[in-house]
């Protein structure tokens, strides 16, 4: 699986930007003066799948909103693909980076599923046949049947379906980077599994903010740990997950899959 996807990636890298995300010295403070991010330096390569973990309020969402230009850098700078994040390049940046919000109810705002998936491509000026094709493709990618779901109201769907449609709405814009905010939150085990398989099958650069460390371990080779607005770790996922002391220090806990095979007291994350 890993091998085949890496072959696909090699082919794709010709099209993809080499370093889609570069963040230099990014600092951001809320209007009330609270520091949300301080001195963030991060570079993500094309095709990488990176987990962004950290306690509540550690700055994960704020960092992600920067990547799409929803929040502009107060100090420091961000380069997305070949564009610096500033008001002039927002249009290109938003086509380049797809942002999937945590609560699909905030993202699915059109009356029908079809209209919602078509929202992004329409804003890029996509029309007629091309629009239909893009929407159909995106819906097929997330395993949502366009015929069955197209005319349905976005309100009367299950959480898993809503999540996948939200992702389809972003995929329809053909982004090169996918930024997801807690994608597995509030999903039942099967929907969560479907989501993991879906993300695995997408050969895009991905930045996944999550509390679901089992998922992070399964999906991402690289993990970035944020704590109080600072990057405290950036490296291999396996290495950080097997360091319960460090995780505990930053209000996190080793994933269950790490304690399960041994079931020894000494492997307990909390001592």
């Amino acid at each position, binding site marked *: 699986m890993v091998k085949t996807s890496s072959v696909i990636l090699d082919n794709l890298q010709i099209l993809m930007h080499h370093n889609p995300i570069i963040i230099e010295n990014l600092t951001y403070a809320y209007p009330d003066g609270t520091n949300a991010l301080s001195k963030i330096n991060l570079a993500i390569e094309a095709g990488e799948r990176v987990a962004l973990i950290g306690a509540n309020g550690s700055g994960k969402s704020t960092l992600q*909103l920067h990547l*799409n230009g*929803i929040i502009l850098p107060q100090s420091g700078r961000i380069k997305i693909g070949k564009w610096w994040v500033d008001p002039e390049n927002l*249009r290109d940046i*938003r*086509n380049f980076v*797809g*942002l999937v*919000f945590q*609560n699909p*109810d*905030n*993202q*699915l*705002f*059109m*009356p*029908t599923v079809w*209209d919602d998936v078509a*929202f*992004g491509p*329409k*804003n*890029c*000026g996509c*029309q*007629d046949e091309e629009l239909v094709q893009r929407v159909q493709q995106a819906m097929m990618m997330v395993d949502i049947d366009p015929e069955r779901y197209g*005319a349905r109201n*976005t*309100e009367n769907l299950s959480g898993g379906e809503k999540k996948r449609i939200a992702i389809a*709405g*972003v995929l329809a*814009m053909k982004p090169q980077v996918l930024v997801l905010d807690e994608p597995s939150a509030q999903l039942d085990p099967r929907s969560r599994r479907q989501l993991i398989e879906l993300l695995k099958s997408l050969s895009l650069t991905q930045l996944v903010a999550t509390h679901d460390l089992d998922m992070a371990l399964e999906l991402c080779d690289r993990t970035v740990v944020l704590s109080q607005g600072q990057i405290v770790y950036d490296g291999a996922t396996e290495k950080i997950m097997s360091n319960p002391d460090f995780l505990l220090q930053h209000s996190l806990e080793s994933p269950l899959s790490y304690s399960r095979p041994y079931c020894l007291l000494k492997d307990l994350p909390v001592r």
Partner: protein
Amino acid sequence: MLLLHLGAFHLDIDSKQATFWHSLAPRTRLLCALLMVFAIALTPNGRWWTWAIYGLGVFGVVFFSRLTKTVLLKRIAVEFAFIGTVLLGTLFRDGGEVLWSWGILRITSEGLTVLGSVTIKALLSLLTLNILTLTTSVPALLNALTALRVPPLLVATLASMYRYIGVLIKEFQAMRKAAASRNLARNNVWQRFVIGNMIGTLFIRTFERGERVYQAMLARGYQGVPVVEKVPSGGRRDVFVLTFTIVLALLGQSIYLPH
């Protein structure tokens, strides 16, 4: 009209039928309905024959579109309960012969004419609009509005109202359950105070949600104005039905022309 049927949030129960009326483009249906409502409402009081002709047209559509009549009647009944209070006021007015009096209350022939006229106007208009909402889904109606060159921003606002009203109701019900599960006292004053607070909270949450929805829109390349799609021009049937509606409207008015 949306607000009155919150309990059963399925408005367009008859939109999947295959009749002549359903084969028309939604905007033609919308345009015909609006034309009829204007014609009905702008007819001066007391012109019973005009309304008789319009009534024939409206009941014709009720019959031919194979509506679920019980639902139509129920909706009209609920809506009439609201209009009834307004109607009562029209009864007691001066002018014409006094037919009945009791203290300061007087029923005059003029009052009766106005009451009868307004009742018929309300009934026919409600029938027309209910036929429209029963047979046409809300997204189709919104598309129809866009096709009729209603400002896209206004249509987008209506669309998000339709989308989020269910979310808001669920949120409010969740709050009510949460209050009940912590033994919300039966004391009336206290209960009103709590419900007031809930509505306030709901308002703040709506505001925050609006902010997040807007961010999600921006993230997908929204530039401040919704994109308008091209719509196919109407077929021969649509032109025919529109012409027929206009002729019917004029015919109704022409009866009283010689006078």
